[in-house]
Every structure is written in C-alpha cells, then in structure tokens.
C-alpha cells in the first residue's frame, strides 16, 4: 500500500516536471526571455515572440491541461486509483 502510493506519487511528480517545463518555455521563454530573438521570424504575419506572448502560449496552456488529464487518468488506472 505504502509502496504503491509512493510509486504513484513519483510518476505524478515526473509528469508535473515535464509539463511545467513546457509551461515555462512557451511563456517566460518564448514570450519574454527569447522574445527579441524570435521576433526575427514571423508566423501568419505576426512576429513570433510577440505571437507567443499574446496567442501561442495560451494555446499551449490549454493543450497542457488536457494532456495532463489524459496522463493522470491513465496513471490512476495503472495504480488502481480510478473510480
């Protein structure tokens, strides 16, 4: 029981680390820190850094949550925590 919950928690933390890494990259990374560099490129008429700051990061956020929901539902099943 203890081991099962520990292993579950560890996998959960691994997912969080990866997903929050992406979360940081698209917003603080592409939208702020590397904004100037990315502005040299364009996406659909919008400078890329500016696009990430005002559009792209938000789309990625939505996708991240739904990916997380899927991953966790699978994880719950694997460990018998689904109901």
């Amino acid at each position, binding site marked *: 029981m203890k081991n099962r919950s520990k292993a579950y928690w560890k996998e959960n933390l691994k997912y969080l680390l990866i*997903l929050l890494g992406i979360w940081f990259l698209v917003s603080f990374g592409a939208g702020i820190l590397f904004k100037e560099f990315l*502005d040299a490129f364009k996406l659909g*008429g919008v400078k890329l850094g500016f696009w990430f700051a005002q*559009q792209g990061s938000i789309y990625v*956020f939505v996708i991240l*949550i739904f990916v997380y929901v899927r991953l966790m539902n699978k994880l719950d099943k694997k460990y018998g925590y689904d*109901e």
Partner: protein
Amino acid sequence: MNNFILSIMSVQTWTYVIVGITFALYIGIAIWSRAGSTKDFYVAGGGVSPLANGLATAADWMSAASFLGMAGLISFGGYDGSVYLMGWTGGYVLLALLLAPYLRKFGKFTVPDFIGDRYYSNTARTVAVICALLVSFTYVAGQMRGVGLVFSRFLEVDINTGVIIGMIIVLFYAVLGGMKGITYTQVAQYCVLIFAFMVPAIFISLLMTGNPIPQIGMGGDVVGEGVSLLDKLDGLSTDLGFAKYTDGSKSMIDVFFITAALMVGTAGLPHVIVRFFTVPKVKDARKSAGFALLFIAILYTTAPAIAVFARTNLIETVSNKNYKDMPAWFSKWEETGLIIFNDKNNDGVINYLADENINELTVDADIMVLANPEIANLPNWVIALVAAGGLAAALSTAAGLLLVISSSVSHDLIKKQLKPNISDKGELIAARLSAVAAVCVAGYFGINPPDFVAATVALAFGLAAASFFPAIIMGIFYKKMNKEGAIAGMVIGILSMLFYMLKFKFDMFGGGTEADWWFGISPEGFGTVAMILNFIVSIIISSFTADPPEEVQEIVENIRIPSGVGKAIDH
C-alpha cells in the same frame, strides 16, 4: 419583427431589450436552483458536472476587468499587455496541475478550511480568512463599478442607480441560491458574455482584414492596402512618438515578474479555487480546470486581436482630424469624461501624440471594448449586446466573490471558531445574512469608489501570490511543512507585499519613484518576490521547529491519492 423596425431601434431600446431578457434569465435560474443546505450553499452540493463547472469558472474568472478593461489595456500597452494575457491564463496550468485535484480530494468548503486543518492551527485559519476577505473585497468593488459604468453609458441612468440595480440582481441569486444558484447563473452568463465579445470581434475582423477569425485576422493584411495590420500599427505608433506596438515599453525583468505574479496570484485566488470543490471527483476537478481554461482562452486570444483593431481604428479616426468632424460616439464619451479633448494650440485639429506637452487627447483604456463597435460603425443591436456582456461579466464575478466573503464569515469564523455547535440551518441563515451584508458593502464601494481601486487590484493578486499560493503548495508537496513555517511565511509574504505597495503606490515609508524600484521591479510584479520570500522563510523556520503531528502527515499522504473522495466530503 421586420428589418425596418430592427434598423431603426435605437441603441438604448436595444440595450433595454437585451439586458432585460438576460436579467430575467438569471433570476429564473436562481429560483430554479435554490440552496437547501450549507453544502448546497458553499459547494453546490458537490455535484456539478466538469463541463458546467468549467463554464461557471470561466464566467466567475472573467470579470468586468477582463471583458471591458483588458483589451483596452493591451490596446494602449501593445506588447506590455502580454503580462495580462499570459498571467491570467498561465495561472490555470498551475491550478490544474498543482492545486485543484488535491484540494478537491481534501474535500472541505473553503480555502481557510484547508489552511486551518493542514496547519492544525486557528491562527493560520484566521490569517487565511483575513487574506481572503481583503482580496475579495478589493476585487468586488471594481465589479460594481463596472456595472455602474455600463448602465450609465447605455441606459443613461445615473451610475449610482446602475450600481443599485446590479446589487439587487446579485443579491437575489447569490443569497437565494448560494453556490448552486451562482454556478448555474454563471453558465448562462458565460454564454452571454462570450457571444457578446465574439460578435463585434468577428464583424470588425471581417471589415478590417477580410478574415472572420479575429485570431488570424490579427496577423492579416489590411483590406485593400497590401500591408500587414501589425506593421501598419507599428508605423502609426512610432509616427506619433509611441513605442512600437509589438515592443512595448516595460523592461524585460518587469514583464517577467508581473507575469509570474499574475499567474501565481490567479492560482491563489480563493473565489477561483473554491470552484473546484463543487465537482464530484478528483478527476472531474482536473478536467473542469481544462474546460475552464479552454473557455477563458476563447476570450483571451480574441482580446489581443480586438486591441489591434481598436488601436488602429482609433488612431485613424481621430489623429490629425478636425474636432468638429468627430462622429457621435466621440461626444457621448466626452460627456462621461472618459474621452477628454483639450485643444492646446487652438487649431481645432486633434493632435494625438505620445509627448504629454503637446498631446491633446486622453482616452480612458476602459472604454475601448464598449466604444469599439461604435467606432467601427456596427449595427445597434451589436452595441447593446456588448453592454449585456459587460454586465454578465461583472455580475458573475461579483457573485463568486460575494460567496467567498459570506462563507469566510459564516463557515470559517462563526462555525469553525466562534460557535462550533451551530446547526446546519443556523449556519445557512448566517451564510445568507453575511451575503446580504457583503453585497451592501460592495455596493457602497461601487457608489463611492475609493481612489485606490485600480492600485488594489494589483495588490489582490500580489497578496494571493504572497500568502495562499506558497502555503497551499507546501501543504501538498512538502509533508514536513509545519504551522510555524507556514504562518511565518504567510505573514512575511503579506507584510513585504503591503510594504512595497504602500511605499511605491501611496508614498509611505519614504515613497519613491520608478528609478527606486528594487531591481526595476514594479509593485505589480513584486508579488513574485514576496512569494519567493514566503517560500524561503517557511522552509527555514520549519527546519528549526517540530515536524507536524503524525495525523497531519497522514492527511497529506491521503490527499495525494485521488480515490476515495466520497468519504472526505461527508464530514
């Protein structure tokens, strides 16, 4: 009704019709979904579907500030406005991944409930109650003001009458229905507000770029000019002496810190967190956070497009044009004092420039969304629709905040501290009475807005970031965090936030200007620093004091496992 009648109905008539229909709808829903128990009142009985909760959360979240204010702020700030876009959406990722599922598993009614139980201390609970009240009151005053603004401009009643009408409507469904009534009215309000936001955006996008999807139109070429809209706007802005629209004027470090403070603050706001207590299971909490952000993203990705359209339209309509040729909306907004034209060189021409000394036009950012359909010459019913949408946004957020205030008083103060053996019925009455009192206080602030409302909204986010977020995160992810650490962290977090805000916004403690900001971080971005301070102080103090008791550590073990929610809510 035939087309002729449709086309001659005035904006005011249309507004009465559309606002009237939506208000009748909200009241109908309120009567249908009355609350019968405290569980109904606080968390809608814990039986809301993830989709409905996602819609309600989106309406709860998107306030008068999001609906009316944000596109205007972006319009005038350009790239600087990105802090709101990323900040107010990125927070939901934190909420979904780090908070919502665990708090749902914990299964209590309020945020102070969690803090009080997890840190086995009524002091911690009281600190949390004070933060919750402070955050919610500063927020709700702004909503009431938004209601007043819409009423005064479109129904041409006095702002105060507008605030009172808004109070009565909110009172009706918040007091009667509690969380249950609020949830289902918010579902309706989301539909009204998103429709009202999208219709003019699509119209204007078509007009300006020929593309009906604003998110794509924003990057498109101007109809008939063969130049991209954003390039054109960059050019117009620099010609008038403003920074390039796509660059903004804030420093990178400040943009970084403000975005972080708004994200973390969003995830720490009690009226948002509490929404995730209303769904049946942990997996529903995760899913409804996803739905909530999806519904929010529709508005948040459209707003920057509206900002670009509105900014371009405004400059082209007013800059270097004769004052006497201005369209009707210009003088109507002048009457409200939200557009001010001061012909400094008496040439009858509007000189709209970045240089304060020769600029002759001041446009309040708050009017951009409301004025936009008129500036673009859209039909009257679209303009009325925007008014109804603004009201839906303001009322839904106000109701959510009032619920947090009333449950803080009736549950966290009366039930948990002053009168523990109060009956469920008695607590329900107390909850309703506190909701009535809260509406009255909010209405008072709506009619007599304190000057500091604008400044305090930043403070609300800063406080939530500096107090709740670290305490909750460590409560879940750091089993050894004890009450000494958590309380010290929250107190230091709040005090440092207050200190910085008072120093640089209210000129206390020696005051200071932009040049004196620590590391170039504005008060809006200081919530991030205060949050880091909270984490550091908590961890240091907890390592020198006793570990939390065994049963508390077991609670933490338990909330990390998603199954078995049923047992947790029936306490």
